[in-house]
């Protein structure tokens, strides 16, 4: 096989993995930016999205329905959880927040086990997405190209949302100074709830997009949350552009590690994180606190 073609395919593989990771890492960093806390349940929401997607597709026969149902379920869960539990904790120390979100992760995992059972679930992609295309005369799955497109679209829409909408402005303002944001007449609690719901919707959509590739299984959440944490650390907690860079770095490190040095692949992500944090303790685009 032509080494250049091989390299190109690995680049595309890496981009598609980066795209999936971006969906979960972006929500994590937005939540950290505005709430200064880490949402341990974010991986479980990603997993819930995968299961909801599979269920919606099984019920309706439509893959598009799964991409609609998952983010709706994620947003509803995020909104309910933020309003009923998290909003009472902002005044408390961070450990309370960590414990409660960790508790939600466990509860979600058990709820999924009760509803859908312990076995992994997968569905068929529609024919048009299940096919292959030839890239430099080598076969490549269409679906992975779709993931790259979805990740790019998500990046673009979220960037526009942050820069051009009132919610985006208030999110950025509240990330920098929540007290002044409120003193200028904005209900910061409402902004937090909306951001949390949006972040959960993104994670769940990521899960639904991942389901055809990885299948919906009970370990999905804890696997993906670790990568997402690493991305957010590398990029700089709370930084949008850092999350883009971190997703790409981790996606490429894992894909190329797996391909060229499989025996070291597991350590690649952590080696990357340690290198970045030694050189820049706040992450690539982190703001000094």
């Amino acid at each position, binding site marked *: 096989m032509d080494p250049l073609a091989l390299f190109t395919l690995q680049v595309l593989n890496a981009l598609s993995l980066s795209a999936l990771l971006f969906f979960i890492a972006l929500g994590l960093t937005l939540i950290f930016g505005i709430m200064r806390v880490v949402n341990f349940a974010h991986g479980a929401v990603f997993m819930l999205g995968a299961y909801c997607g599979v269920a919606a597709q099984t019920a309706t026969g439509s893959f598009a329905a799964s991409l609609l149902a998952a983010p709706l379920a994620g947003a509803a869960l995020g909104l309910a959880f933020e309003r009923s539990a998290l909003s009472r904790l902002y005044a408390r120390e961070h450990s309370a927040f960590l414990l409660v979100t960790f508790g939600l992760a466990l509860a979600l995992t058990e709820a999924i086990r009760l509803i859908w059972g312990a076995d992994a679930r997968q569905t068929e992609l529609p024919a048009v997405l299940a096919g292959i295309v030839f890239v430099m005369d080598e076969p490549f799955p269409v679906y992975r190209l779709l993931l790259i497109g979805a990740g790019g679209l998500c990046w673009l829409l979220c960037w526009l949302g942050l820069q051009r909408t009132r919610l985006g*402005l*208030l999110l*950025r*303002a509240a990330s*920098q*100074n929540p*007290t*002044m*944001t*409120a*003193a*200028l*007449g*904005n*209900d*910061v609690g409402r902004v937090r709830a909306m951001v949390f719901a949006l972040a959960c919707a993104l994670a769940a959509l990521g899960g639904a997009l991942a389901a055809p590739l990885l299948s919906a299984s009970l370990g999905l959440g804890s696997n993906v949350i670790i990568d997402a944490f690493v991305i957010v650390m590398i990029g700089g907690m709370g930084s949008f552009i850092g999350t883009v860079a971190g997703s790409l770095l981790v996606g490429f490190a894992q894909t190329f590690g797996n391909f060229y040095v499989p025996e070291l692949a597991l350590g690649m992500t952590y080696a990357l994180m340690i290198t970045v944090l030694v050189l820049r303790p706040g992450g690539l685009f982190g*703001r000094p606190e």
Partner: protein
Amino acid sequence: MLSLSEITGGYAKAQVLEGVSLDAAAGAVTALIGRNGVGKTTLMRGVMGLLPRMQGRISLDGAALGGLPTHARARAGLGYVPEGRQIFPELTVMENLAVGQRQPSRLWPEARLFALLPNLRDRRANAGRALSGGEQQMLAIARALVTDPRVLLLDEPSQGLAPMVVQELARVLRQLADEGVAVLLVEQNLRLTEAVADRILIMARGRIVHDDTAPAFRAAEDELRHRWLSM
């Protein structure tokens, strides 16, 4: 306009306010002076609903503000220029202004705002952190103005400003009061205070200990300074 009655409160472990009553009238600059640590900043934070605990009555044109969260107090008509300016460092000047504008300002459309604070016009696309101290202070004031406040609370706005900029600040505050805004000014800078204030209140140990017109303050200034203000 803004009326405080028997305000007590402070932080978790420290009672700072020991029963503060004052009125800030529309169309006037009411200045609050006093040594460091007497509770001036705590009082301002209390008015904005930013203290962990506080009792007493706060009303704006007769409507009670006491139980309202911070954002509702701002919407009711309180504009806040906090100690240390607290502009958003990563937002541009225009974005800093937009945070407080749920709808475009009625009283302070862009042209009028920049006529009042011309330095900001050229800096509109710059990030907050790139501004000089004086520009940041003007931005903090502008940011409060575009919420169309009926009461403007300013906490040591002259801190760290060059004398020229303080003069500029005095002109702006005077103009605001003349247009009907109730200005409540906390200051250490007596020159600024005397230049703009209609009433001067002195605070000590969490209470108002002196409340009189600016001319009366000037007449008794030596004694008042010695008793309440000198270190």
